[in-house]
């Protein structure tokens, strides 16, 4: 298979505008003849559904939550990047582009990233017009803060709830279109499979989560905006419902899965408190603007943090990365935390934690300033841990947070299956091997408001309206497969719960394919996963029936897909025999423990093709060609 990324010719800075000038258009009267399905209603899906409908397409939007407003984008705290240079600190489109490419450890596609930086400025304008109440200075102008991996202040924010406010903006735009009749919304409806007819994506099969009814929906194009797969680790900062099912089903229908091993571990999460833990809570990266990260210099030091004198503390990020200090990128900060904990210097129960200390910032800026900046985060911390972070340092530890990998897409955000578009976290395209803070919101909205609405027209104009009838045998076939799978789940009646299996899979993934990976561990995981999967299909217990609200059944379907997907993730991690960004192979590190890339062999996108349940997947490589930037070892020292 030849992978064609369809990157437009011409100088990097002109590619997107030239492309827009040359792709096909559909006249306004004809747009209403096309049906588009959007799966997911987060920042990417919500903004895409609203925008496509404004343009005149007939849109159906699906989400498994009870309302479009609840998609997991809502939980993003810190902010959204944009190259506005409002701070006059030397920011530019090029700098945002370069920071993102470098932050991704030179494993992202140059042209996509440049376009992302370019449209970032439009996003802020769009959101302000929608009424997103961004933080402002007393002048009335927009305020900014700094984020990891950047030396300029380019992050726009709405207190600690930026994701919520941006999502409400998109949700409101979507509500306007639903009211106008342009979008039909299907909440509490989960996509269970993709329907491909004559090689083109032509619809989906869904389950109504309230009635259990399985039904088909046909369209001229299908857009997946179904988020990331961080819950493969069981414990993550993702919402409990986040899952890999939509993109995994698409993979099994022929779409390529790219770079699944690029999974981001976020350094600032509240540590695990016990075996009952159901999820981990992120403390926004923005805290690292003012918080200082440290552990005791000596291992086994069990004094309370306030008893440890300054000279016996190791501010390890400031020590190792003086230029970026506490704002080192996420992968680097996470590994540094793991390293000091592995040395026995971790704090809190089980020794898996480091301090994030605000005492100096409170002394410098006063309690009120800190309260205004981070008040809601400090409250959240207190609710969960029962500790007051104004008095004693927070304890934090890395946790699975975001997944850079996803379905392979070309420059137009279309997968290798014609008519199947993938946007937001669900695709692989913009963050390389590590995403910078405040860039996920940027990518979701860039894809949904400003990129997909243009590029989808190019495909539809070529295809002409060609929505198949629901009587087509392919829909029937897929519906039957789903019904059979549901019956299978309900008939096993084994001894173990879905949660138990998910927890076991997650622990295996975290231990063998988490922050540090090595050949022996990955091979071990590759042996264990199929066994666990087999046990799952023999011994899982799913009660109730398929014709009602059945949360165990929903969960079983998602975990069954994680069980298959996990194997591909590990295989990708084993095949990528280098370290890059968040993918840290212990065999490949510099003497001082930094990730060592091997550009001569691995400067490519790994795109995996499904070849049947019993055959190993095929690896296709899209070489990463850099026209503008020079590949260098990342340095934040």
């Amino acid at each position: 298979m030849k992978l064609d990324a369809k990157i437009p010719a011409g100088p990097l800075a002109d590619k997107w505008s030239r492309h827009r000038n040359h792709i096909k258009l559909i006249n306004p009267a004809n747009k209403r003849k096309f049906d588009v399905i959007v799966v997911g209603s987060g920042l990417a899906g919500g903004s895409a559904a609203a925008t496509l409908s404004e343009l005149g397409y007939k849109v159906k939007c699906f989400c498994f939550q009870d309302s479009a407003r609840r998609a997991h984008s809502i939980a993003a705290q810190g902010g959204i990047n944009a190259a506005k240079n409002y701070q006059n600190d030397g920011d530019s489109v090029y700098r945002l582009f370069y920071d993102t490419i470098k932050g991704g450890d030179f494993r992202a596609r140059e042209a996509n990233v440049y376009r992302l930086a370019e449209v970032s400025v439009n996003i802020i304008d769009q959101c302000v017009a929608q009424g997103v109440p961004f933080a402002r200075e007393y002048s009335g102008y927009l305020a900014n803060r700094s984020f990891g991996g950047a030396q300029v202040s380019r992050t726009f924010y709405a207190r600690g709830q930026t994701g919520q406010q941006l999502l409400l903006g998109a949700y409101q735009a979507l509500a306007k279109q639903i009211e106008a009749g342009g979008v039909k919304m299907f909440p509490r409806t989960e996509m269970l499979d993709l329907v491909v007819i004559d090689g083109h994506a032509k619809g989906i099969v869904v389950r109504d989560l309230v009635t259990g009814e399985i039904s088909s929906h046909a369209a001229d194009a299908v857009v997946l905006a179904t988020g990331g797969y961080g819950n493969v680790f069981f414990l993550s900062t993702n919402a409990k419902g986040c899952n890999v099912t939509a993109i995994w089903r698409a993979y099994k229908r022929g779409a390529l899965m790219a770079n699944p091993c690029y999974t981001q571990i976020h350094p600032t999460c509240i540590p695990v408190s016990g075996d009952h833990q159901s999820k981990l809570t992120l403390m926004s990266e923005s805290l690292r603007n003012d918080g200082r990260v440290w552990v005791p210099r000596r291992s086994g030091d069990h004094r309370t943090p306030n008893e440890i004198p300054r000279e016996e503390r190791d501010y390890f990020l400031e020590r190792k990365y003086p230029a970026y200090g506490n704002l080192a990128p996420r992968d680097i900060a996470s590994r540094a935390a793991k390293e000091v904990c592995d040395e026995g210097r971790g704090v809190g129960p089980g020794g898996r934690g480091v301090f994030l200390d605000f005492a100096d910032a409170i002394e410098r800026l006063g309690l009120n300033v800190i309260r205004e900046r981070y008040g809601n985060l400090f409250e959240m911390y207190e609710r969960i841990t029962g500790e007051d972070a104004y008095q004693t340092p927070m304890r934090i530890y890395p946790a699975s947070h975001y997944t850079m990998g996803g379905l392979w897409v070309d420059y137009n955000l279309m997968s290798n299956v014609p008519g199947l578009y993938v946007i937001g976290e669900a695709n692989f395209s913009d963050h390389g091997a590590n995403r910078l803070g405040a860039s996920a919101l940027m990518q979701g909205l860039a894809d949904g408001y400003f990129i997909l609405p243009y590029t989808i027209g190019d495909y539809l104009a070529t295809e002409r309206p060609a929505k198949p009838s629901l009587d087509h045998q392919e829909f029937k076939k897929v519906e039957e497969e789903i019904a059979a799978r549901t019956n299978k789940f309900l008939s096993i009646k084994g001894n173990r719960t879905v949660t138990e299996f998910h927890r076991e899979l997650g622990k295996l993934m975290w231990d063998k394919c988490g922050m540090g990976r090595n050949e022996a561990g990955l091979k071990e995981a590759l042996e264990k996963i199929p066994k666990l999967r087999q046990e799952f299909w023999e011994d899982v217990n799913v009660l109730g029936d398929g014709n009602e609200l059945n949360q165990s059944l929903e969960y079983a379907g998602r975990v069954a897909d994680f069980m298959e997907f996990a194997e591909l993730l590990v295989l990708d991690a084993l095949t990528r025999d280098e370290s890059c960004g968040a993918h840290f192979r212990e065999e490949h590190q510099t003497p001082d423990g930094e990730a060592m890339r091997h550009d001569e062999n691995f400067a490519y996108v790994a795109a995996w093709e499904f070849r049947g349940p019993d055959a190993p997947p095929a690896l296709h490589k899209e070489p990463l060609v850099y026209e503008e930037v020079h590949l260098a070892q990342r340095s934040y020292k």
Partner: protein
Amino acid sequence: MNLTLRVWRQKDSTSQGGFVEYNADDISPDMSFLEMLDIVNESLIKRGEEPIAFDHDCREGICGTCGMMINGVAHGPLPATTTCQLHMRHFRDGQAITIEPWRARSFPVIKDLVVDRSAFDRLIQAGGYISTRSGGTPDGNAIPIPKPDADLSMDAAACIGCGACVAACKNASAMLFVAAKVSHLNILPQGKLEKDRRVLNMVRSMDEEGFGNCTVMGSCEAVCPKEISLDFISRMNRDHLKALWRSK
């Protein structure tokens, strides 16, 4: 700690529901309320009984999916806290806890503790937006907004749409929810153009959805996990009155 739970079980929207008693044993004070329910559900499945259905998603207090009446109080005893952020250290060993779904005509029960809050979506569709389109907007700094206004708008916009305000209200009124959305947008210069239309349509839609009337007792504010202020209701009433007068 060991607890006794009285949980509302209801097979579906048309069946009769009732309380069923369960024991929750060996509960750690560090667990969240939902993690406690997870433990109970795991033991139910092991015994071959169907687990208790409840809505939840982010489990960090922002998505607004979870919510239940805990001993008669929406989201339980801790102020300014969603059910998922409520931790068991706020209960005592041996305590009996009664758990019910939101009770409101406009929020019909789907199953056990799961209710249908789609009426909230329809309220937003009635006018809870600014009619801008994607693209063609002016520079973000072209519209300076006084910081106090932006902050006040944000106070209202912090609403997570969980429905606790409706559940706590003896009339099952949605005034706090609607007032928060109307205020979030009406305070901002971008929202001013559609100010009258927005408030008239949203208030009308609230009546059509069967929510009750507001008697300004403040039960909503007392349980709101985001501490949305009752002041926004006064503000909306003012906007509504002016809009009515202007529309005549």
